[in-house]
């Protein structure tokens, strides 16, 4: 009997320990939040009168987790009553799934940095930015908020601009053509591109490189076909709607045929031709940066990978990916400019105080000089009018900015609608085509079937 009593007591102790261990977390954060408020009140004006607020931030730009961490630390120094907790994600770590689980469990992050497609998906949960609650958003450059606007409501605030097209290595091209003899603007037809490639090959340099991953070929290359349908986002989405309804087939579009002809050209001179689907990003980046090939279909985010490498070239520029032989047509002399990420605030699972704190923090991050400096130091090009203009960007971003100044950019607003598994599925078809497993008719049929299969 004594033994049983002992066992029972032991079990109770264990149970008690587990229960308190589980509960400990919430108790901890509560008291932690309080200490922030009580120990150093009033380091900034009026902070002592405010109630401590704790908000969470979900970040899908995995390469800059530390940047956000430092930013929030500084923000907490300025405004001690606001504690921002970063929920970081890793590259390829299942970011969408993590966000979904946070929402499903009722722990939606107060604000988050996500893809434009997510803004559409989560629009019912998101706080609308208005003149009253976010006056700072009027500082955004013209058209920058369009990508985060749905049904006339601004749900996402932009913070960076990126671009993609054919990157070229300036040193390699200079060696082939002689210094200063190459004008990127001269590549505005497919024939001009082919001539350029032939010259590279004649000089013994492989002309181009395709990264054999579905996000590059499906998410970026194939998306050009929709985006170049017209300068407005609706032109692209309208085209997709017509494919969905069966009104048109993608192969009927001369733009599709044109881009696929160019794709054949790229595949013909592909540095990775012998084994095109390896898709080792670091290896491709290294090969390009070491000048083993002249051009690379990629975007300026490549820079963040390159800075970690040694003995590489630093001067790059963009040339367009022409789809026809008429230089006046849209898309032949333009490069893609895209707002790849947006900042959104959740209204469905956070208190008004938390939402207000997130609004204030966003305003500071995006439009106050001190907040902007964090982004600028990380090499981002910010679409805000009040960004200081004495910043030296890397050569890739500079090249995109030059195209933007000349108005020579392709509007990739349609990218917001390339959500879910669109780019994985259509990208896989592109990979099959690149590997020669299917021909162009089968590719087109696959893309049509895909669009018609989704609800």
């Amino acid at each position, binding site marked *: 009997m004594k033994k049983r009593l002992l066992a029972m007591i032991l079990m109770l102790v*264990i149970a008690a320990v587990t229960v308190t261990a589980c509960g400990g977390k919430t108790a901890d954060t509560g008291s932690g939040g309080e200490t922030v408020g009580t120990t150093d009140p009033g380091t900034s004006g009026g902070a002592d009168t405010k109630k401590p607020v704790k908000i969470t931030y979900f970040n899908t730009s995995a390469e800059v987790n530390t940047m956000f961490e430092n930013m929030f630390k500084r923000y907490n120094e300025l405004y001690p009553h606001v504690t921002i907790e970063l929920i970081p994600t890793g590259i390829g770590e299942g970011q969408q799934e993590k966000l979904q*689980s946070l929402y499903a469990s009722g722990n939606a992050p107060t604000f988050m940095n996500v893809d434009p497609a997510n803004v559409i998906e989560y629009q019912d949960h998101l706080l609308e930015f208005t003149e009253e609650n976010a006056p700072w958003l009027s500082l955004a450059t013209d058209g920058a908020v369009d990508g985060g606007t749905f049904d006339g409501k601004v749900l996402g605030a932009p913070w960076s601009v990126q671009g993609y097209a054919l990157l070229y290595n300036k040193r390699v091209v200079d060696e082939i053509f002689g210094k200063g003899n190459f004008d990127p603007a001269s590549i505005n037809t497919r024939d001009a591109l082919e001539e350029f490639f032939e010259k590279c090959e004649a000089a013994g340099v492989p002309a181009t490189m395709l990264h054999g991953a579905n996000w590059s070929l499906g998410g970026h290359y194939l998306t050009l076909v929709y985006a170049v349908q017209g300068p407005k986002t609706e032109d692209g989405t309208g085209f997709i709607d017509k494919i969905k309804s069966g009104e048109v087939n993608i192969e009927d579009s001369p733009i599709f045929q044109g881009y696929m002809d160019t794709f054949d050209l790229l595949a013909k001179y592909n540095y990775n031709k012998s*084994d095109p689907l*390896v898709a080792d990003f670091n290896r491709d980046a290294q090969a390009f940066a070491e000048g083993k090939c002249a051009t690379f279909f990629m975007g300026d985010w490549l820079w963040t990978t390159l800075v970690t490498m040694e003995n590489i070239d630093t001067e790059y520029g963009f040339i367009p990916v022409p789809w026809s032989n008429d230089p006046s047509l849209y898309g032949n002399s333009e490069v893609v400019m895209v707002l790849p990420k947006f900042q959104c605030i959740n209204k469905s699972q956070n208190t008004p105080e938390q939402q207000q704190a997130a609004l204030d923090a966003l305003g500071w991050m995006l439009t106050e000089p001190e907040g902007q400096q964090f982004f600028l130091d990380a090499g981002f090009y910010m679409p805000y009018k009040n960004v200081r203009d004495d910043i030296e960007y890397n050569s890739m971003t500079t090249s995109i900015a030059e195209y933007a100044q000349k108005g020579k950019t392709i509007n990739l607003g349609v990218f917001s609608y390339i959500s879910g*598994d669109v780019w994985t599925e259509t990208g896989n078809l592109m990979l099959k085509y690149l590997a020669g*497993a299917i021909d162009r008719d089968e590719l087109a049929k696959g893309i049509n079937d895909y669009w018609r299969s989704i609800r």
Partner: protein
Amino acid sequence: MNRKNKLLGNIGNFILFMGPSLFAFACVLIIPFLYGIYLTFTDYSPIRITYEFVGFSNFRAVFTDKEFWQQFLKTLGYVLYSTIFCNLLAFILAYLLTSNIRGRNFLRAGFFTPNLIGGIVLGYIWKFIFANVVTKLGETLDYQPLKTSFLTHPDRAIVAMIIVTVWQYAGYLMIIYIAGFVGIPREVQEASEIDGATGLKKLFSVTIPLMVPSFIICFFIMISRGFMTYDLNLALTNGQPYGSTRLAAMHIYQKAFQANEYGIGQAEAIIFFITVAIAAVTQVLLTKKFEVEA
């Protein structure tokens, strides 16, 4: 009175000792499982605020999802081959390492080590080997089939997965087989030797029949783990080239979380669960028939 007390005491004991684990088991397994079945009849999505009851339409969608069945067949093939080769290799290793080979403890530890590395790490290691080391080898030997990566061709990528799976689990199954070998009573072995059974004859007529319990366990482990493979799949091929190596588990995951078709993904998961359960139970029942008493 006394009997009633005893019954109460038994229930008390049961709750005392089984209660906590039963509670945990119910929380993380039983309840989510039942809730999951319920969700297959709805158009649930973590993103949308409300969801509705849609009857059997998710299951109908599964049967028209051609890709799911394609990948399902591929998974069956993957499980079949990895089970066969893994057990074969493990058995041979165990056979060799229970004989008087030099340094057998070191070798046992060596073969077991891959199992201690997680599937994700293993996947990345082998990805590097297949993409860089093997291709380099092909170039050095000037042997065409090795020059391109295993992972860029649909059929060879599955072969690559089977190779890594066999490498990963062979050591683990080897330990079970070694235990089986060691567990065979000496007197039975000696008796068979006195009766004149030697070498292969002894292996097939005495050793293997007595080791059926080990086979049951090893086959069960390989079949259930093979079907569930996700981490290795993710790290080694991630479904590449062009989606041809997405095993069933990965397909379900992508359907639910990337295509945002949660109901369909969940329905596929239920169908998949039933298949795995049937396969595993059939295997156990079938192999149990071969069990003999020493």
